[in-house]
């Protein structure tokens, strides 16, 4: 059992090394994210002017939500995994995986975990620099259970993020160019994943619909647990059930697309 997983440990280690090579790209991205955070601070501070709360939460709670989201993004978001998978299919690099006893999904997932560890560690650098400026605005709830519940939610979110990117990558079996689909989906994920505003600010009917979509569990769900926007035990348990359901559904979809895609795939060359 463990020896079968050994190969993925090596894929993870290679992923770690190759992502450290791109440390400057991650650092630049992290640096620009701070400006994005500054824009959010300016906008929401202005929106809160003259009022103590908006949607039941204070300005500091809202700003804490966005800082948490930024950190989560670097730890669990799929950055360019879809393009990498797409390139490997288009250039025929996947042919070598078809001939070896290695599961392509697990191979890519191992590299994804390595990449997020590197980008997650690197975002902490600009965040430490920004800490003196944002420290006063941060207000995390003190309950330790949030960490115990939020971390598994975060892991499941990472799986949803990766599975969606993997699906888009596999679309290359049918379409030569996937960039348009990816950016189109990114717009939907941005709004329904809670990156533009906390989802609880949506009208109740829209929030209820969003709760059943996978985007809610890509980022908002763990962020809401960590920052105190979700506190009701029943709602969190229900969230977990839906999140696990989406993970399983996406894994099945991944597998189905892979099998169907391979039927269309032609390996050329010797």
């Amino acid at each position, binding site marked *: 059992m463990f020896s079968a997983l050994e190969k993925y440990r090596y894929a993870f280690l290679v992923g770690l090394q190759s992502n450290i090579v791109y440390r400057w790209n991650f650092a630049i991205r992290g640096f620009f994210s701070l400006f*994005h955070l500054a824009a959010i601070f300016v*906008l929401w501070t*202005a929106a809160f002017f003259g009022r103590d709360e908006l949607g039941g939460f204070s300005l500091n709670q809202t700003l804490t939500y966005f800082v948490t989201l930024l950190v989560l993004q670097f730890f669990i978001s799929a950055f360019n995994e879809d393009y990498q998978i797409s390139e490997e299919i288009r250039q025929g690099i996947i042919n070598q995986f078809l001939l070896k006893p290695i599961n392509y999904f697990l191979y890519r997932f191992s590299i994804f975990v390595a990449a997020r560890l590197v980008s997650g560690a690197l975002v902490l650098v600009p965040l430490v620099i920004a800490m003196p400026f944002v420290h006063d605005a941060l207000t995390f709830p003190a309950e330790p259970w949030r960490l115990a519940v939020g971390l598994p939610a975060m892991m499941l979110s990472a799986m949803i993020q990766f599975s969606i990117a993997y699906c888009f990558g596999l679309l290359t079996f049918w379409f030569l160019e996937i960039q348009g689909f990816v950016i189109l989906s990114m*717009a939907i994920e941005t709004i329904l994943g809670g990156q533009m505003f906390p989802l609880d600010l949506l009208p109740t009917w829209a929030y209820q619909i969003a709760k059943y979509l996978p985007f809610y569990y890509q980022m908002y769900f763990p962020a809401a647990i960590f920052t105190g926007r979700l506190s009701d035990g029943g709602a969190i348990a229900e969230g977990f059930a839906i999140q696990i359901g989406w993970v399983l559904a996406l894994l099945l979809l991944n597998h189905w697309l892979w099998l169907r895609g391979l039927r269309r795939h032609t390996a050329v060359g010797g």
Partner: protein
Amino acid sequence: MLHYLKVWLASARYSIVRTLMFRGDFFVWSLVELFWMVVTLLTIGVIYQHTDSIAGWSKYEMVLLVGTSMMIQRLLMGFFWSSLFEMGRNIRTGNFDFMLAQPGNVMFMASTRKLDPDGLVNLVAAGAVVIYAAQQLQLEITVAGVALYLLMIFCGLVIHYSILALSISVAFWLANAQGLEGGYFTLTEFSRLPKQAFTNLATRVILVWALPAVVVTNAPASTLLHGFDHTWLLWLVGCTIVWFGLAVFVFHRGLRRYSSASS
């Protein structure tokens, strides 16, 4: 001048023919840009469900500001984005040699090689957002007011072009750094905010006074909302001259460092 117009028209014709060859791509990319515009408008809609004003700007005043920002961005995307993005990549790979052999100013040739009709199609959508907001606000629109607004939009386009060209020109010095165009997108985030929202001294000095992020959109939007104010016009024209001059200077300094990669 006529020579450059002919060169630009030839490039534009080539880009349109190319777009017609890849109609599916054109459709998807037009939809992508439209979706992102909707994302921004939805965000405004949601925030204004919980408040009446952001820094003294009402919902439709804010929509007008964001629509103005979209118009400038669509113009930049339509006329310059692809060419400038490719310029950064070509500098890194050494393929920029091709541009040096073109019949005209290198910066002009490198900036206008490609046209993106999908960006220009969405210019209509951005314009519709501005018109809708103006109607909701029941603004008195005059020919002179519209002319001034369009002049300011043009200045905004020149400033956005200059910022993007500056970001890309860094590639002459740092060949390995990618994603520098992110600097441009970072700045556009601030251009969707009203000047009055920058209450903190540091953000006010950096983003309102030092960088042209705010003036680019606030000047035309305020002119449409409150009428002509010579301060806005002088500020915007001044910024246009300074930032375009800086972009031209930095690009040509960088060009001197370009060492090619071919044999």
